[in-house]
C-alpha cells in the first residue's frame, strides 16, 4: 500500500548523482508474524546509476532479498512496505503524472510508491524486471520455456502499444478475454511475433538450437541453461533496471562464470542498470562498481569497490572480508565474527547498533541508533559506525558479558532467515 500522498509536505526527489536512474530512500518493510513484528528492511537508502552494476551484499537474514522485492513491489502478506520512497527516472512517466499526482513527481523523477497500484504494477517488465536464485522453481514446470518467454515479450508489446489499458484494474486482460482465448483455438495471450522474438532471445543468451529448445519444458534444461532462459525472460521487456537476486548461487563455478559474462555483455549491449544481490563477495568484486553492505535490515557501509574492499571502516565489513579464505595466499587461520545473526524481532532489537553484540570494538557510544557517517576514501564512502568519526577507545569499550542478558538470539525463533525469501544458501553436490 503506498504512502498517503497528502501527508507531510513532499520533499521532492533526494539529492544524488546526475545520472542516477533509481534513488531509494528510507525503504522500510515489516512482517507481521505470530511471533511479533519482524523488521526485515529498515530505512534502506541506495542509488543506482544508469548502465551501472550496483552490488548489495549481506548474509542470510540481512534483508537483501526483501529489499529487492520491495523495490519491485512484490512483498506478499504477512509482509508490508510501511515506509520509503522509490524515485525512478522516467521522463514520460513523470510528464504523465505531473498534474494528477504532483507530490510524486520532481523533474524527471517519479516516486513509484506514490503512484496508484495499477501503474506500479505496469512498470514490472518494461521498467523493472527480476531474476531469482533457483531457476528450476522460478519457471512454471508445466508450460514450455518458449511460451513463458513469449509472455514476457507480449507484456512489453502490449504495454508500449496501449499503456492506459495495461494500467487498468484488469491490466488489459480480464477473465472474459481469457475465456474467449482459451475456448477459441489459435487465439492466446502471446502472438506469433512474440514467440519468434522469444526464440531470438534464447539465441541471444547463448542457448544452442533455440527453436527446438523453446518447445521443451523447464525440467529438460540443465541449471545453467535454465538461468540463461531466465535472463532472456527478464530482458524481454528491455527494462531500465534488472534486479538479480543471487543469480549464480545455485550454479557451479564454471557455469557461474558463463552467466556472469553473459550478464555483463547484455548489460553493456542494452545499457541496463543491474542491482546485483548476493552473499558472495567474489561475485561483487568481479561485477560491481559500487556496493552496499547490509546487516540486520540496514545498509551498514556503502561506497566504491575500493572503499569497501580495501579500507572498510565498519567492523562487520572487516569481519566479512576476514572470514573469506584467500585462494591466492592462504592464511593459516581465519578471523570469524563471533555469535549469531540477530532475530530481527522488533521486541528483541535494542535501540543500538545491531552489530554491537558481535562487534570486537563495541563501545558505550554504540548504544544508540547510529546514522550514516561519511568515511574517507571516495566521497561515496559512508558507514553506519561511530569509528568513522571517533577513534576506538579501550576505556569506553563494553565489558565482555555486556550482551549476555539479551535473549539468546538463536533461542526461540531459530535462525531468523528472511521470512519471505528463502535466503538459505544451499548449493548442489
Amino acid at each position: 500500500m503506498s504512502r498517503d500522498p497528502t501527508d507531510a509536505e513532499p520533499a521532492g526527489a533526494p539529492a544524488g548523482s546526475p545520472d542516477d536512474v533509481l534513488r531509494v530512500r528510507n525503504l522500510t518493510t515489516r512482517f507481521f508474524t505470530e511471533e511479533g513484528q519482524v523488521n526485515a528492511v529498515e530505512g534502506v537508502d541506495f542509488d543506482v546509476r544508469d548502465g551501472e552494476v550496483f552490488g548489495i551484499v549481506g548474509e542470510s537474514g540481512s534483508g537483501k532479498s526483501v529489499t529487492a522485492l520491495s523495490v519491485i513491489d512484490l512483498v506478499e502478506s504477512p509482509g508490508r512496505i510501511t515506509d520509503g520512497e522509490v524515485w525512478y527516472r522516467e521522463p514520460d512517466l513523470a510528464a504523465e503524472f505531473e498534474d494528477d499526482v504532483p507530490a510524486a513527481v520532481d523533474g524527471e523523477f517519479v516516486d513509484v510508491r506514490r503512484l496508484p497500484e495499477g501503474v506500479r504494477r505496469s512498470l514490472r517488465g518494461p521498467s523493472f524486471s527480476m531474476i531469482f536464485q533457483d531457476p528450476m522453481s522460478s519457471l512454471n514446470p508445466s508450460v514450455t520455456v518458449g511460451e513463458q518467454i513469449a509472455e514476457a515479450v507480449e507484456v512489453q508489446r502490449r504495454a508500449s502499444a496501449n499503456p492506459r489499458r495495461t494500467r487498468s484494474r484488469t491490466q488489459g486482460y480480464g477473465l472474459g478475454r481469457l475465456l474467449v482465448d482459451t475456448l477459441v483455438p489459435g487465439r492466446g495471450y502471446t502472438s506469433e511475433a512474440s514467440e519468434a522474438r522469444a526464440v531470438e532471445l534464447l539465441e541471444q543468451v547463448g542457448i544452442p538450437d533455440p527453436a527446438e529448445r523453446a518447445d521443451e519444458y523447464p525440467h529438460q534444461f540443465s541449471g545453467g541453461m535454465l538461468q540463461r532462459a531466465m535472463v532472456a525472460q527478464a530482458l524481454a521487456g528491455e527494462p531500465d533496471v534488472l534486479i538479480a537476486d543471487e543469480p549464480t548461487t545455485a550454479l557451479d563455478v564454471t557455469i557461474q562464470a558463463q552467466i556472469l559474462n553473459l550478464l555483463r555483455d547484455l548489460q553493456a549491449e542494452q545499457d541496463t542498470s543491474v542491482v546485483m544481490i548476493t552473499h558472495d563477495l567474489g561475485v561483487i568484486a568481479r561485477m560491481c562498481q559500487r556496493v552496499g553492505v547490509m546487516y540486520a535490515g540496514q545498509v551498514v557501509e556503502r561506497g566504491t569497490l575500493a572503499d569497501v574492499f580495501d579500507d572498510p571502516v565498519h567492523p562487520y565489513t572487516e569481519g566479512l572480508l576476514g572470514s573469506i579464505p584467500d585462494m591466492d595466499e592462504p592464511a593459516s587461520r581465519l578471523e570469524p565474527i563471533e555469535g549469531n545473526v540477530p532475530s530481527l524481532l522488533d521486541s528483541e532489537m535494542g535501540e543500538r547498533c545491531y552489530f554491537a553484540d558481535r562487534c570486537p570494538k563495541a563501545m558505550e557510544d554504540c548504544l544508540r541508533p547510529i546514522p550514516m557517517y561519511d568515511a574517507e576514501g571516495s566521497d561515496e564512502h559512508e558507514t553506519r559506525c561511530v569509528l568513522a568519526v571517533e577513534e576506538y577507545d579501550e576505556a569506553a569499550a563494553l565489558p565482555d558479558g555486556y550482551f549476555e542478558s539479551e535473549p539468546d538470539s538463536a533461542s526461540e525463533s531459530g535462525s531468523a532467515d528472511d521470512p519471505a525469501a528463502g535466503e538459505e544458501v544451499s548449493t548442489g553436490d
Partner: protein
Amino acid sequence: MTETDPGAGSDLRGTDARDGDGADASAPPAGDDDALVEVRGLRKYYYEDDTLIDRLLRREPTSIQAVDGVDLDIERGETLGLVGESGCGKSTTGETLLRLRDATDGSVRFDGEDVLSMGSSELRRFRKRAQIVFQDPFSSLDPRMTVGDVIAEGLKIHDLPAADPDVAVEADVTVDGDADVEVTVDDDVDTAVESEGGVARVPVRVDATGAGATGSADGGTRADGGPTVSFGRYDDVLAAEVTPRDGGYDVHVSVGASKRTLRRERARTLLERVGLSAGQIDRYPHEFSGGQRQRVGIARALALDPEFIVLDEPVSALDVSVQAQILNLLDDLQSEYGLTYLFIAHDLSVVRHICDRVAVMYLGEVVETGTTEELFESPKHPYTEALLESVPRADTSEQGRRVETLSGDVPSPRDPPSGCRFRTRCPEVIPPAGVAVDQSTYRSVMDLRDRLRRGDFGTGVVWEAVGDPDREDTEAFKREVRAEFGLDGLTGANGDTVEDALEVLANGREREAAERLTERFESVCETEEPVLPDEPHPAACHLYDDERAAAGVDDDADPVTDPEFGGAGMAAGMETPDPEAAGGELPDGVSDPEHGVSDGDSSDADDADDHDASEDDRDGSEP
C-alpha cells in the same frame, strides 16, 4: 568459540596421539603402506527403469556411471580435498567409501582391511572408526530428537561407554589431614573418566582433617564420622566406599552412575568441545541456527571417537562468517585428536585453506591430484585450470576481469563422451598428428562430428533455413552449415576434407560425412581414455603423454603437436545437455538399484534430489 581450558583437553582415544603435528603438515606422506584409506578402482553405477514391467518389455536398463574408477589415498592425520562440480560423483564416492551405498566394483582398504567385504561385526567396528558430517544443517539432525540424544545415539547403538581393557586406571590421591589412606579403583572407571595417553587419572581428594567433620565443602560422599571423598568434576559419576581399618581408611572408587547418565555426561562434554553450552543438551534442533546445528553434527561424529571423518560439504550451506567459525573448529579438532579428513567441497578457496592434498573429479573420474601447493600454483589438467580461473576472488583486482569460460554444460553420465570425458568442453583438445588447426576451428569440427554421430543433425532444418525444399543448391547448404558451426578458418587439406564431407552431407549421407571427418580429425582425446599415472602430481590428460614418453615411461601415446591455446568462444552446436537438475548430482527420478538391504548398515540411499514414487529398482546383490 569458547575454548575449553587446556587442562581438560584430553585425548579421547586410547592409542597414542598421531605423531605428525597440525593440519599444514607439508611433508609429502610416505609410501602407500602408511595410507589410512586406500581406494582402488571404485565404481558406482545406477540403473534406470528396470522394473519387472520393463523386464517384460525386454528393455535394456540404461546405466548411469556416477563413479567410474576412482583411486584415492588418504594418509593418517591428513586432510584430502575432493573437489568438483555438481554431478562429478564426489558425494557418492564419500558415501560409498563408508558403505552407506553398495559399490558396484573396486576396493576400499581402511587401515589394511577391505571395507567392502566386511562381515557385519567387522563393519560395526569399522563404524566406530569412520564417521561422516553432512551438508544441510536442516536435514542432518533428526527434528524429533533432542540435541543430547542426537549426539549420544552412536554410544547407545554400540552400548558404550564400555571398559577399555588396554586403558590403565590410576588415582592421584591428595589427602587432607594425617590419616593413612589406601585407594583402590575399579578397572571400568575409564568409562566415566577421560583417559589421557592411555591412562585414566581419577582425581581423588580425601578430607580426613577430623573424624566427624561436617560435610566437606564440595559435597563429597561422607562415611559416618569417617573422611569425605570428592572427585572434582567427576563427583556425580563416581562413587566411593570407605572402610575404616586400624590407623587409616581403605577407599574403593567405582562407577556410580548408569550408562545413560554416562552417555549424557559424554554428550555434555562434546557440546562444550564444539563450542556450544552443555545447558542446551535438552533443546531441539529447530532452536539452533545453521552454524550451531553443524556443530552438533560434528559432535555426533566425534562421539564414537573416530580416526577418519568424511566431511561432505560441511560448510557449503553456511554464511561466510559462520563458515569461518566451523573451519577453525575442524582445524582445532584435527590437531587435537589427530583426525584424518576427506573434505568434499565445490568452493575452491575453502579447499585451499583447509586441505593438505586435493583430488579434482570430473564426471565420475579423478582427473588430477596433488598437494594443495602444486595444484593451486601449477595446475596441470585443463579442467583444473578452468576451475581455478573461474572462481571470483573477493579482491578489487577481480573487478571487470574477463574470464575465459568453458563452453556448454557437464555431459550426462548416462552416456559419457568416449575417451577423455572432458573433451566436449576442453579448450586444449589435441588435434591428430600433422593436422595444424587452431583450437576454436578444431572445436567446431568436433562439435559437428558429435552432432552427426548422435544422429540429431537435422539436415531438414538446414534446408529449410536455406529455403530450398527440393535440396538442389548444395553450395547454399554448405554455406549455412559453415556459418552455423563457424568452419570458415580452414585451409589446405583440412579445408578439402571438410568441403567434401559437407558435400556428402548435403545429399543426406550423414554417416559417411561423419566417417570422412573422423578419419582426418579424430583426436587421441576421443579414442583413448587418459590414465591417472602413479606419480606425485598426476593428471589424467593426454597433454602430458609426451612428457611421460620423454621420461621413458612406457606409454604408447603418439607424439603430440603443441596445441595453441585458442579461446573457446561460445561454440554453437554443443552436446545437448542432459536434463540434470541444477543442484542434484543425478538426473531426476533416478534411484539406486542396490536395494536389497544386508545387515542394515550397508543399505544405500539414492541421492537424486527428488525420488519419483513410481520409480522401481532392480533387486541388488546381497553383500
